[in-house]
């Protein structure tokens, strides 16, 4: 990690490497486990008749993996329709599924499958089956679809991602800061990056930041 830090007087996204624009799904390439890849994931999805789930805890990279798999799905000839459900959204927006399934070779990508009620899930699976559509979802725990990938996090992964982010934009964040945030956030990489964003801001503004105890 780079340790030099500067703060220009001109606001810019280049002043904090942990800003949303650098960390949102798709901005950082998904880091697969050592012997895995997007091609392997797509092969597992194909083997389960193009219906599967990515499973993992909050902030572990499920949405990022969806973004990583998207080009491969398009290359395989699917018309990909993506929707992300927010907390409490128990059903799909009216008309969305009908119009998505009307496409040629549709594949539904649903981020947040467990938000749907049981009846809505059943209806979704049935309608995808009837339309010969693919279905790829994310969930926090195994669901009624074949798990094609279990996402998780580790200190090593957190350090690798922070190194990548700070290679382009300097930050006073140290390896000890990353370790401390990892200890607090566990597998929630999104939360870890949020913490580092705030810490970077505080340090760059010269605020007194509690030293990290390891």
């Amino acid at each position, binding site marked *: 990690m780079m340790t030099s830090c500067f703060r220009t007087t001109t606001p*810019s996204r*280049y002043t904090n490497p942990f800003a*949303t624009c650098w960390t949102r799904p798709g901005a950082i390439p998904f880091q697969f486990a050592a012997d895995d890849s997007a091609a392997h994931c797509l092969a597992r999805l194909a083997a389960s008749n193009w219906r599967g789930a990515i499973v993992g805890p909050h902030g572990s990279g499920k949405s990022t993996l969806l973004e990583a798999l998207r080009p491969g799905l398009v290359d395989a000839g699917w018309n990909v329709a993506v929707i992300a459900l927010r907390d409490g959204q128990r059903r799909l927006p009216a008309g969305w599924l009908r119009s998505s399934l009307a496409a040629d070779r549709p594949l539904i990508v649903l981020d947040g499958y467990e938000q749907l009620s049981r009846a809505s899930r059943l209806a979704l699976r049935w309608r995808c089956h009837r339309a010969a559509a693919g279905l790829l979802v994310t969930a926090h725990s195994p669901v009624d679809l074949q798990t094609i990938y279990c996402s998780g996090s580790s200190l090593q992964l957190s350090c690798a991602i922070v190194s990548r982010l700070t290679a382009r934009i300097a930050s006073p964040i140290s390896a000890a800061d990353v370790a401390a945030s990892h200890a607090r956030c566990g597998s929630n990489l999104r939360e870890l990056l949020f913490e580092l964003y705030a810490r970077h801001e505080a340090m760059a*503004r010269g605020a007194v930041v509690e030293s990290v105890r390891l």
Partner: protein
Amino acid sequence: MKQDPQVMLKLDSAAAEYGAGDRLSGHFLAESAAPWPVASAELSLLWYTAGQGEEDFAVHYFQRFVDEPGRPLDLRLPQRFAAALPPSPLSYDGQIVKVCWCVRLRVFPQQGPEVVEEAAFRLGQVPAAPGDA
């Protein structure tokens, strides 16, 4: 050895600080020994938000430079631009969200990937948010 052209985007004001209603001007060019065939270049003057959470942006001024018969686009020559700045939103360096202004240039070569350059500037004098000392 062939070298990629270096695209330079410069504002006339070295301080890059402007007030509402001020006129911003500058130029861009490509430093290249040989002619660099370019299909077009797009210059935008825009603001965006950066920080944690949702992002927003809007383009205030847009100008397209096109290579066309009788008016070839030679980026080895300085291409000038100018625009009047709006009254808002003013630049703000907040801890959670920043309002950022920049001039963004996208160059589309006849071959190869597009080249993007940015020049950040400040609109107004809103003080930055202090640290939580």
